[in-house]
């Protein structure tokens, strides 16, 4: 698991971009626009949005494990400390204050 690239590091607050476009998008709807934090940097992977259409997947995209509080995503949560963790590529993330 190479982690040489990527502009975010564990602990950084990030906001998932709220975008919509056709194609093989790997960022689920429910998490778009939400704020979380980088839990882990997984490294660089071929871009599935390109691979799905028979292209080469280059340039590679850094993949992050991004953590969210359940209550921040749904405005409610049975367990106050419950988390949601989603694998998100860097081009779907913006820094959050």
């Amino acid at each position, binding site marked *: 698991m190479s982690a040489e690239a990527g502009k975010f590091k564990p602990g950084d607050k990030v906001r998932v971009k709220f975008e919509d476009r056709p194609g093989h998008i790997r960022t689920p709807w*429910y998490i778009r626009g939400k704020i979380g934090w980088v839990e882990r940097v*997984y490294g660089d992977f071929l871009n*599935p949005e390109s691979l799905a259409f028979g292209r080469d997947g280059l340039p590679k995209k850094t993949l992050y494990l991004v953590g969210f509080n359940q209550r921040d995503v*749904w405005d409610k949560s*049975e*367990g106050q400390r*419950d*988390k949601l963790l989603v694998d998100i590529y860097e081009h779907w993330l913006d820094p959050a204050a």
Partner: protein
Amino acid sequence: MSDSLVDEHGHEHPKHELSHYAKRIYAIRDLLLEKGVISDKDIQCQIEYQEARSPVNGARLVARAWVDPNFKARFIADPKAACAEMGIDATAINEFVVLENSEKVRHMVVCTLCSCYPRPILGRPPDWYKSFNYRQRAVSDPRGVMREFGLKLPEDVEVRVHDSTADIRYLVLPCRPKGTEGWTESELAKLVSRDSMIGVMDALPAIPQ
């Protein structure tokens, strides 16, 4: 769809009315065969390969991790190497991550986008794993889903739901059931259910021997 079992291409088709998706997959299969991209033998080999993989693989890994702390450390640090050590072929997985449960933390895995699943370790996913209901509720009401599987967690336990949306495949390492001290690895493996490795429930309870 003709009524005969063998259509004009010479391939067998089921006699009953097929769903839209089934018709589409048969049409794609016929085209791939007709154009020589794949052969009947390729399809049969792939079916056998898919069927040969089962949760038995995962149960062996978990039971070994329960009895051998050094193996557990290797399994968490480098799951694919630990699989190779056990003679389990995990090379088809791009990146493999093991999520260790504890009394205070429970993990649960879903793929809200499709049906990503650690197939070399667990075989084919159960139908419910692919259902819209599970995919929707696993992320929004994980404790409700766990209750339906018989797992009631205290409020102070942290539930961590992993939505495997990309190249990572996740396997939950459940807690070793109480009362299993001195059990052999193969006895323990019988307690490691498929669902405990998806994380919707704990490993099966120890039944006095």
